[in-house]
């Protein structure tokens, strides 16, 4: 499978300079007496060409962290740099445009639009960017076919299994060739076999030299797919594992 990228020709891919860097990120919810700080001065890096897993127990702040990295939640303090763009400085339409052009999302519940077919769902990011509908659908069909859904292009989400819906969601995340893929518990709604298949597909289709992929999960079964693991606890980075093969999954 090949998924072309928008990165400039000859763009340098380096593990030394991160594709995404967070410095001193702080986030609180509530106000006054019920102000709860959920992210405490977090520094973390995500590198292009890798699948980075963000793990930790429920409530540790990993979802809040990726929401801020993806620009759908605002950090109270600190700086988040995504491929050279300081996301924390973007606001309003510029932030929406940044997300539209640079980020692909894969959600735990897939969040496909029930009234649209698999092809139409996968084509949404292109149509949102203003691409002609027939061209967008054509590109979505090609990608879905490469993800093994050629017989299900015209089916609606309710006619697809959980694994098939997740593949449509993966296609929707990749179709506009974003530089950064954010996955939130992509295997949580799938059985073991479907989860492994989805992660296989995700790794093969999404991980590219000039693209960063970050997966939030606490599913131990998918740790083997990681190139790098960042473990969080109580709103802080607990440890970073650069060689997950050495990690004891238990």
């Amino acid at each position: 499978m090949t998924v072309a990228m928008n990165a400039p020709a000859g763009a340098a891919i380096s593990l030394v300079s991160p594709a995404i860097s967070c410095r001193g990120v702080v986030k609180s919810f509530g106000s006054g007496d019920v102000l709860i700080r959920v992210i405490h001065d977090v520094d973390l890096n995500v590198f292009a060409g890798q699948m980075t897993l963000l793990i930790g127990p429920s409530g540790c702040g990993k979802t809040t962290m990726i929401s801020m990295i993806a620009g759908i939640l605002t950090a109270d303090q600190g700086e988040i740099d995504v491929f050279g763009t300081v996301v924390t400085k973007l606001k309003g339409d510029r932030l929406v445009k940044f997300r539209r052009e640079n980020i692909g999302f894969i959600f735990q519940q897939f969040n496909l639009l029930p009234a649209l077919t698999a092809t139409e769902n996968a084509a949404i990011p292109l149509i949102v960017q203003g691409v002609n509908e027939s061209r967008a659908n054509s590109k979505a069909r090609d990608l879905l076919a490469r993800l093994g859904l050629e017989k299900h292009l015209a089916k609606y989400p309710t006619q697809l299994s959980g694994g098939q819906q997740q593949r449509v969601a993966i296609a929707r995340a990749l179709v506009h060739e974003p530089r950064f893929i954010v996955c939130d518990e992509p295997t949580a709604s799938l059985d073991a076999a479907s989860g492994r298949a989805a992660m296989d597909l995700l790794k093969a289709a999404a991980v590219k030299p000039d693209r960063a992929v970050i997966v939030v999960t606490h599913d131990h079964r998918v740790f083997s797919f990681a190139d790098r693991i960042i473990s969080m606890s109580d709103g802080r980075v607990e440890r970073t594992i650069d060689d997950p093969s050495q990690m004891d999954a238990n």
Partner: protein
Amino acid sequence: MIFPGRPRELGGTIEINDRRAVVAALVKSSANFSANVTIYTTYARAVGFTNNGRNQLSFVVGRAEEGVAPEVVARRISQDTNLRARTNNEFKWDTINYILANTGIPASFGAVIGLGIIVGVVVAGLTFNMFVADNIKQFASLKAIGVTNGTILQMVLVQALVVGAIGYAIGLGIVAWFFDTVPKVAVGLRGFYLPWEIAGGMALLTVAIMLVASMLSLRRVLTVDPAVVFRG
């Protein structure tokens, strides 16, 4: 009332104020608003039937000669006789204005229509609210992906207008069928019809109801935090 216990038949005789009258024709007219019987006859016979002389007649129906404008004839009659003469259209509006000014019909009909509008807005608004609540994660996903509020606004409004158009077409079809069919068998509904002004007015009202109903729900869509997509 005219033919008690007898079939209605042409050529039959009836008695009106002790005078014999022969039925020359039966008119399939619309139901009389005041429930009085309407008898069509010549002026001379009408004076005779009423027993009260010509001064007690409520209306005399006349027809202008060909080529003469009814308005001109009506003005001339008024000038010459000092009686009120009206054309067909003026008489219609006199009747309507009288009913509006002197009866409770505008208030009662207005209350029914107003209630219908309120029920329409509430039902459509609740339906839209349920639609939005059921799809809030999908809307949030679209916002996360980069869909602007303006595009979401267009999506919801198009949906509202399509739903409204379908509902309007079905409703208008039922009403048109009713007015076309039922008055043929229900004498009391004769004369009921569906003027284009009512159909057009209902279309505008439907659009207004759908806009108000969708606006009430849109606030929720436009203010939804895209971060909810990551919450379970």
